[in-house]
């Protein structure tokens, strides 16, 4: 005979505003099997939990139902509480009368009735809950970091410094990411290269870090503590172990006119190249699309001049499998492209800004390369079309961002600050020039940020014009900018020499594909979703996977570094234990019933279903049945729904329990 305790939470006023909690409690106390029912203002608070604990001991309760918020919010809290007074935690269930009831209904009577029914269902379900032992799994104390930008570098260094091995995977030939492309950084105007390159070298030299550049994630198997990651190391055509980084191959390569993507196509590079001189590792890559040897089969100049004989045209992609216990995703961002997108894409280009066809209309990252001392112009601000120094530069903020029409409703967060920085850099380099900024709002929250922005206006004499630009067009060698100053209320026209667009921050292309490999969720923009916006900002909903940097949402460098260190701390917490406790809500196969059709294996998204032999005493094989590996099973229940012979059951959600819940209605 079960003695069930029912605890109704007011959730401040969240529930009690629409649900008559006292009536729910008094009705619930009449349900068969319920020994005790009460209500309290904040059940999750310390007095609330004590109330539950006291009731369990006093009334010798065998099962507990807490009617409050979503189990995602507080199931762990209450299960822990009942465990402290000796009850098996899986005999405690939550009835969601907040998200499923009080928040979505207005009629008090109907909402109360619904709450009573929800509680009734959970009472019937909890009666049939089994005592479950916690599952423990071993933890592989190695971490994988995906992405070698500042987020990935920071996370990798922090984890490695704590004494754990780290595997870092970077898609490009060099680590460094976007930060390596920047000239100076706000709000202190220190040179990006000066603070970035030492970290890159630290990473490359760290004894605990294995770095795979020019590599991509092919496949991810396993689960928290026990991932198997397959990495595709793309063919570099250069042997990393032999290459000394002398660079003679690059000086001799006859293909010299290839646009340099690192310099935003402003400069050129050779077919065998390193993205930038400070690249780590300093090993070139052959760009097979543009290499004469790969196109015509004749050339091989680099191979002839290479002293150590590092050039290998026959090199193939290799697959490496790395066992890891935790994954930090730090794939970063890319900028919105104003050129017209193909039909069918929700994101349209900017026709009013010339679709990127006006050569002197550039984006912010291109301006960074112009202003960078290591850039294609050596740090001189020269416009791309004719190499002249622009005297009137117009900056336009919110290009793409905050535009429902372009499908990007969010604020890109970094543009206000970097545009202010650009006006300063420009003012420092072109003393007789004038910078104008068209902006809708200045969003500059952050330490020393507002002061920085005001400095651009008050001391560096940038003219800020509140209002958006409606159109740009070429007129002779000038670009006419048509905008409005809404604080004066007039139309404004500027003939500019150079226009810089602060284009929106977007997730990397292919972010969705990687998310599907990792089994993590992403939002409608393809930014990766954190488990909880406030309380779990670095964890994914998928256990063992953490987020760092702009892959989760637009972020500046200070925020990115903070989040990377936070993700590293989470990984270290995971690695602090040798064994990991997992929730035992997993599927079980009734071996007597199972006919071995393995329909469950086909539908299992986690690869948890294995084959098991059933033998008699003599060792003769009787049949093959399915076996669910409890370490891998995520408890989704797909197998239970699929099984034609009803041989698989998910603990806590068995068919019997579901039927009992329906009957309670």
């Amino acid at each position, binding site marked *: 005979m079960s003695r069930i305790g029912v605890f109704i939470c007011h959730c401040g006023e969240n529930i009690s505003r629409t649900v008559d909690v006292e009536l729910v409690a008094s009705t619930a106390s009449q349900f068969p099997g319920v020994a005790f029912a009460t209500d309290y203002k904040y059940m999750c608070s310390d007095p609330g939990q004590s109330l539950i604990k006291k009731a369990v001991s006093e009334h010798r309760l065998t099962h507990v139902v807490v009617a409050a918020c979503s189990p995602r919010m507080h199931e762990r809290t209450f299960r822990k509480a009942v465990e402290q007074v000796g009850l098996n935690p899986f005999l405690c269930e939550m009835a969601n009368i907040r998200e499923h009831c009080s928040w979505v209904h207005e009629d008090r009577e109907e909402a109360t009735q619904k709450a009573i029914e929800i509680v009734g269902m959970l009472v019937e379900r909890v009666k049939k809950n089994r005592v479950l032992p916690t599952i423990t799994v071993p933890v592989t104390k190695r971490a994988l970091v995906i992405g070698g930008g500042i987020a990935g570098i920071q996370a990798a260094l922090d984890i490695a410094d704590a004494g754990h091995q780290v595997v870092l995977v970077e898609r490009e030939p060099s680590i460094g990411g976007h930060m390596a492309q920047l000239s100076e950084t706000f709000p202190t105007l220190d040179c990006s290269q000066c603070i970035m390159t030492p970290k890159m070298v630290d990473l490359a030299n760290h004894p605990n870090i294995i770095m795979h550049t020019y590599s991509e994630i092919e496949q991810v198997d396993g689960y928290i503590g026990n991932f198997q990651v397959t990495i595709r190391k793309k063919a570099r055509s250069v042997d990393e172990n032999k290459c000394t980084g002398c660079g003679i191959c690059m000086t001799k390569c006859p293909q010299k006119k290839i646009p340099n993507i690192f310099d935003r196509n402003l400069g050129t590079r050779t077919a065998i190249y390193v993205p930038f001189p400070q690249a780590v590792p300093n090993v070139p890559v052959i760009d097979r699309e543009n290499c004469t040897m790969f196109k015509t089969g004749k050339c091989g100049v680099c191979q002839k001049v290479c002293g150590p004989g590092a050039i290998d045209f026959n090199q193939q992609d290799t697959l490496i499998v790395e066992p890891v216990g935790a994954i930090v995703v730090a794939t970063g961002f890319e900028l919105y492209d104003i050129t017209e997108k193909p039909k069918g894409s929700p994101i349209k280009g900017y026709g009013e800004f010339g679709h990127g066809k006006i050569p002197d209309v550039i984006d912010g990252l291109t301006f960074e390369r112009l202003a960078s001392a290591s850039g294609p112009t050596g740090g001189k601000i020269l416009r791309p079309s004719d190499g002249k120094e622009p005297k009137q530069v117009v900056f336009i903020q919110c290009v793409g961002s905050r535009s429902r029409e372009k499908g990007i409703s969010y604020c890109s967060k970094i543009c206000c600050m970097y545009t202010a920085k650009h006006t300063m850099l420009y003012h420092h380099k072109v003393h007789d020039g004038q910078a104008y900024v068209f902006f809708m709002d200045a969003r500059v929250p952050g330490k020393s940020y507002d002061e920085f922005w005001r400095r651009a206006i*008050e001391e560096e004499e940038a*003219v800020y014009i509140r209002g958006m630009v409606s159109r740009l067009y070429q007129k002779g060698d000038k670009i006419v900018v048509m905008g409005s100053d809404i604080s*004066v209320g007039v139309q404004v026209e500027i003939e500019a020499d150079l226009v810089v667009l602060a284009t929106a921050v977007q997730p990397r292309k292919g972010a969705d594909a990687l998310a599907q490999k990792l089994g993590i969720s992403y939002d409608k923009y393809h930014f990766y979703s954190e488990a909880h916006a406030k309380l779990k900002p670095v964890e994914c909903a998928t256990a063992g996977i953490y987020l760092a940097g702009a892959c989760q949402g637009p972020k500046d460098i200070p925020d990115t570094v903070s989040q990377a260190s936070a993700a590293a701390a989470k990984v270290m917490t995971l690695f602090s234990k040798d064994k990991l406790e997992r929730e035992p809500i997993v599927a079980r196969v009734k071996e007597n019933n199972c006919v071995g059709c393995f329909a469950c294996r086909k539908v299992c998204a986690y690869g948890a279903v294995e084959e098991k032999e059933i033998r008699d005493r003599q060792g003769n094989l009787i049949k093959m049945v399915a076996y669910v590996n409890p370490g891998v099973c995520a408890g989704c229940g797909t197998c239970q729904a699929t099984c034609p012979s009803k041989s698989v059951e998910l603990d806590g959600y068995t068919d019997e329990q579901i039927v009992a819940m329906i009957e309670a209605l």
Partner: protein
Amino acid sequence: MKKKKMLISQQTMDVDMVRKVEKLSGTSVRRCFQCGKCSAGCPMATFMEHPPNRIVRLLQLGQWQRILAGRSIWYCVSCETCTTRCPNQVDLASIMDALRKLSWDQDGPSKESYVQLANKLFLQNIRTYGRQYEMRLAAVFNVKSGQFLKDMMLGPKLLSKGKLKVFHQKNRNIAEVEKIFSRIEEMRRKGEAL
């Protein structure tokens, strides 16, 4: 002028004039971030075509001619509400003073403004008589502005109440008053005063 499209360039932005305003008023124009608090509290804003915040905005853009074309600066009563309340410590009342002074010197379109004429006549009277001679002020103003009958009906009422005197009353220390005026003129020549 108000609605005309604004062409912005280094040539059309009169930075020198802005610097002059900043020097005369001893305050920074660039500090303003257009919160609008000055205009919100200004008792005269409803009479102005450019409310105070827009005057500062036009200065930021070096659009001196647009300010000069309007009469807003002459409506300012120097109550200093704007200066007191500005979050950025922009001394708007002083800016208005400076603008009026520069507008005066410029012989700009605001010369047509009767406000300026009234101001001028007012000060001339003080200088001549050592105090105000209302009858003369009204008469000369009406003649010079071409509105001969303006406020004529108020005359008898004011006369009967003794608010308007037919003959002037000269101040005994007129020499002292003259000293003040010449000193200000001297200071202006040296650029020490507005």
